[in-house]
């Protein structure tokens, strides 16, 4: 990873991005998935060249459980933003997968992540 960072290659959708949470959990996702979050996208912007953009490691200061849900949503958004206009988007299914107790916390995190 450090090698890649020093090379400053063009960003590719298929780049692997590591997202870390509190308590030391980390998640790997493609760049196009992570781009579903505005904040993460800015963070990884190659032109601006912040530390995270170079290392391709993005911290999200939330509980692992929340981060996992965020990642799940990013996958969901990245996948369905590409399907044709006629295809049904199972928003309801997704909402049912959000447990009620974490709703507020998740909402706050999503707002911070601009997604």
């Amino acid at each position, binding site marked *: 990873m450090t090698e890649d960072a020093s090379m400053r290659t063009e960003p590719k959708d298929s780049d692997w991005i590591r997202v870390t949470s509190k308590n030391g959990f980390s998640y790997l996702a493609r760049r196009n998935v992570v781009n*579903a979050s*505005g*904040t993460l996208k*800015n*963070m990884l*912007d190659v*032109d*601006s*060249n*912040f*530390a*995270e*953009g*170079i290392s391709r490691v*993005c*911290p999200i*200061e939330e509980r692992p459980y929340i981060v996992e849900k965020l990642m799940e*949503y990013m996958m969901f*958004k990245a996948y*369905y*933003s590409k399907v044709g206009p006629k295809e049904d*988007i199972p*928003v309801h299914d*997704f*909402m049912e997968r959000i447990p009620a107790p974490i709703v*507020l*916390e998740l*909402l*706050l995190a*999503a*707002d*911070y992540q*601009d*997604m």
Partner: protein
Amino acid sequence: MASGLRSTRGRGKTIKAPKRHGPEVSVDATWTQLSQNLKEVLNNNAEKLSFEENHRFAYNLVLWKSGALLYKGVMELVVANLAKLAHEDVTPSFPTGAASDPVHQSHEAEMLLKALRRIWDDHTGNMTKLSQLLSYMDRIYTKSADVPQTREAGLKLFFEHILRPPSAIQEHVIAAILSQIQSERDGYVINRSALKECVDVFLSLETEKDGPSAYERDLEPAILKESQKFYASEGEKLIDSCDAPEYLRRVEARFTSEEDRTHHYLSPHSHPPLRKILEDHLLTAHSSTVISLPNSGLDVMIDHNQFDDLARLYRLFIMVPSGLPCLRKALKESVASRGRGVNKASSDPTDIATDTGQGKASGGGKPRIATSAAQTLSLALKWVQDILDLKDHFDQILIRSFKSDREIESALNEVFESVVNSNERCSEFISLFIDDHLKRGLKGKSDTEIDAVLDKTITIFRYVADKDVFERYYKGHLAKRLLHGRSVSDDAERGMLAKLKVECGYQFTHKLEGMFHDMKLSDDTMQAYRTHLEQSNPPDVPISVTVMTSSVWPVTQPNVSCSLPPALGKSCKSFEQFYLSRHSGRRLIWQMSLGNADVKVAFKNRTHELNVSTFALVTLLLFEDLPADEFLTYSEIREATSIEDSELKRHLQSLACAKYKVLKKHPPGREIEETDSFSFNEDFSANLQKIKISTVVSKVETAEERKATKGHVDEERRHQIEACIVRIMKDRKHMTHNDLVHQVARQLSARFAPEPADIKKRIEGLIEVRVSCSLPSSWHIPDAMALQREYLERCNDRKSYNYLVCVKRLRWSLLRLELLT
């Protein structure tokens, strides 16, 4: 979709965020830390900083309701940074003004532009980073506080602190841009990309919200002003120093280079005003001067077939509204002056052949007599050919240089029409030209060539206003061709007829077709006659007769008769009997003057076959039984043949004074006098077995003949106008004077251009009760009927007319019809 998801999940605004336990760190401490980091970002040291950390600082500050502090602080940082950049980078690049050499100056200007671009790039890069870091502020704070987002604020700050007084930068930059443009116009090479990048800065800056860009407000007017100044003097300079083609070349180069310029580094938005400046100063201001430049203007270009230059002229001139009219006017003048030349050349020997005026309308004219007439013929041919060449030349130019522009075409048509019609003998000349081509020109030319020539002639014919005059001449010439079998190709004749039909309609060619019809009928009749002769006993002299319908053929001269020798008389009688037995109720009138004959004459050396006109034959036959050394005086011949003086003289001349001298004239001479006497020339010899003695050369009319023709034409026109008036009034019943005149003129325009005064006269003629005394009393027409000629009546307002239908007139016209038929 994303928004849909968001809305279902809600936002911090609608659902209150869970309360935090107050700021863990103080606002001030957070800001101090953040501002430190932001300074680092502005110094391009972002890679050392954590995005997440700083983003969270900003996030916290906004959450802690310190957005205003954050925003203001950031702006201050940006302003300070801009000042630093300007001071470090741009100000040192200001031109020193010391350099006088243009290359150096240009270099300095380029450096300044590059510096400006550098700080611009720096600044926008910074602003991007800041806006990324402060995205939460942009999302939440700027909206509620109604201030521009980070990025826009950055552009605004740049504009306010760099490109606006009191900063001297703008002034210097604009001056640098202008000097760069100027040096490119002067032919130096400049760094276009530096210029373009700099102009882009101006383009992307808005002077106020949704207002014009800095480019539109500050840069463009300066550029336009400078351009205006430059091209005003450039126009003057070029017109003084260049000839027309060179001027046009330069101007076109200017146009392309300016277009190139706007395309490459100025805004496309500036193209129209720049172009307008060019058009105003290089074209509109000088168009008429260029076109009429002596030794190189339009006329000279046309003379030298400079198609490319002419095409350039056209391309440039259609850009400006005054260009095309100017070009049209100049073209018209050019054609008109050339046309005048052609017309003048054709009318120089005006009083041709007044002395040889004794007839050349029929029979066998002699080429010798008519030298001057032949000259006129060649003059006619030359005139048509010249006009054709002229037209060809301009058509070429029209197609090759003027893209067949409609307006120019119509201008050319107009001027050609006036040129052609300004030669009052145009109809005659054109007819002669066609005649000549159908008779002689066909030899040695292919059918397609002939067709092309005739096609072109038709285009000239189209310009002729008095088509009826042409018809008259064409009829005469066609009749001669048909009767004397001079027409080389029947197909060509019919082709020509078809062309005329297309041009002028059925009416026009009706009679001409009738002539062809008669020729065909006569062939059939002759066939039948010969079969008839085989069964009965044939007369000694075989004859071939063409029966012509008198209303169709132009038989202009009164019937000149002669007393035929008995042998011929018998043949005629025989045919007459045959013909009348087939068609009852017809009358045959022999037109001797139009005929010709083959006769075998035994001279001393050999026997020749002569082809002579009927009159010449009759004359020759007088010498048949005469001893070789005896004479016949002129008066004896006249008595024996009873041919009219003028005709007789002409035929004697062709027999005794022309190329083949079958008769001897005593005393010898060129002109026939009444005191002359003639004898048979036994010693006559020629190389050819068959000799054609009299040739009908279609000649130009003499002045008198022309006057006669004009009289005929005028009379015909009078009838046509009257007929037309009655036709119109019959249809309309009531009409005002002006409408009527207009209608008549319109309907007749296909045939000729009637004068309004003439029409008025005709109308009056139709109104007045004419007391006619010219009717022969033998007609026994009741006075009341003969005197009435009221077709129209004038209304009380004295401006319009009513059509009168009255029984009397109907009967009268019936009566007249009978009398005429």
